């Protein structure tokens, strides 16, 4: 029952007006700006390098997740997990990280070469470099 409610809440979140966010890497990363296809390639595990480093893909559980998954990546929830399980359990990619919120993503991205994540607009600061707007 609780899950059904959660799903319903997720549905509402998806239907609500776009929640703006940014795809970010460490401020000193060599990675240049990305277009939507470039972001998709990384978050679907097809591109395995970010700024010349092995990619560390960081998802997060905050409210920015739903608009990012359905609006940018093009796959959400179970379909995205299913997609990644095909990559991880065949060694084609390293398992992505799934962090709690904007702050955790920023800390991880700023301190890890090759890490790439997404955060909400108002969380952007000098520790990160913005590669894509959504």
């Amino acid at each position, binding site marked *: 029952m609780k*899950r059904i409610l959660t*799903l319903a809440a997720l549905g509402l979140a998806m239907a609500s007006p776009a929640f703006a966010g940014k795809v970010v890497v460490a401020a000193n990363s060599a990675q240049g700006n990305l277009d939507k296809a470039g972001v*998709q*390639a990384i978050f*679907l595990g*097809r591109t*395995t*390098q970010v700024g010349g*480093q*092995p990619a560390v893909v960081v998802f997060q559980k905050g409210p920015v997740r739903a608009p990012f998954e359905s609006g940018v990546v*093009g796959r959400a*929830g*179970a379909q*995205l*997990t*299913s997609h990644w*399980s*095909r990559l*991880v*359990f*065949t*060694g084609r990619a*390293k*398992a992505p990280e799934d962090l709690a919120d904007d702050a955790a993503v920023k800390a991880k991205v700023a301190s890890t070469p090759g890490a790439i994540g997404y955060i909400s607009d108002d969380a952007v600061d000098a520790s990160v470099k913005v590669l894509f707007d959504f």
Partner: protein
Amino acid sequence: MKSVLALGILAALAAASTSAQSVQITGFGQMVAGSVIDGTRSPTTGERSFPGTGYDSDWDFKDESLFAVQIRGDLNDQWSATAQIVARGREDFDPEFAWAYVGWNGGKGLSAKFGRQRIPLFRYSDFLEVGYAYPWLRPPHAVYNFQFSNYDGASLAYTFGTGSWFSTVSVIGGKHESTITLSGQPADQELNSLVGGSFETVYNDWLTLRAGYYQAEVVIDAQALNPLFATLRTNGFGNVARAIDFNDDGSFVGFGAEINHGNWLVISEFTKVQIDDSYYTDKDQFYITGGYRFGAWTPSFTYGTRDADAKTEIIGLLPNVAPLAPLRAAVSQVVFSDDLDAEYMSFGLRWDVSTNVALKADYTQYENKGPAAAEADSIAAGVVFTF
């Protein structure tokens, strides 16, 4: 050899674990219950059975259940070591290394693996046991019917994208050894000089096309057949024994297509398998699955066929004279045991309970109209997960 390889991978993982954060532990599994609810009973045991499973008329909770843990350690920017340990209910949850390899990622789309890995025969070979990765309760048995899935060796893959197309070419080489069940008795199996390759391309993230070719020298020591071979040889029919046994080249050709568009799902594969100079028939195997996603629910329907004609020319090698009638009968029984005119019809349902847990159910009707006629209906349901 097996344990040396496994120990090597573990040592590499231990080395990687000394540097913080470079070891990842992930896993997956499923708990499934199943039963054969209707069908032909074996004349010898009086029991029902269902192809590809160990199910009978009773409910079984082990046969298709499994639990797997994967440990990956990054050795440096280019090299990593991965071990995937799977405990299958069918084998009393005895843990086994399904994958154990050292991987190299050369950048620019080039990568290689050395060690134990899957033989990428089918579209879903690589994630055969990762139930969360596919819509069915089990990959369709019409095509997924080999009693082996791994090899020890090397693979090289090149991945490249051009606009809307994203493609991977891979080649492998190595060897497989295992003990399979043939006519109810254990049989040591070797696939020597196993080589082959596949090409897979994805268009705009919704259409996947795949083709593969593999070959190997197939050697199987089938204990169940040894008494027959001995009789044939003592009577001067060593050539008949050689025409039946497994000691020659086998080949595999496979094509696959998958459409994942909007809420629609269509998956289809066709395979052709043959083993020269053996009673194993040349098989044409096919399935097609259609499904539709209603939110978290995905019902699907699968139709599959297996077609293969008994190699009756083997029986013709024995003169048709009265004293040889019993021997001809014994040879005929073996030859016709692999004649297939089989159909599968499955209704499947998947319910994504959360982003890493799904419930699945399956009802399959099987019928073989060949000389070894049989019918069976099975139902199975379970929970699959990843972490």
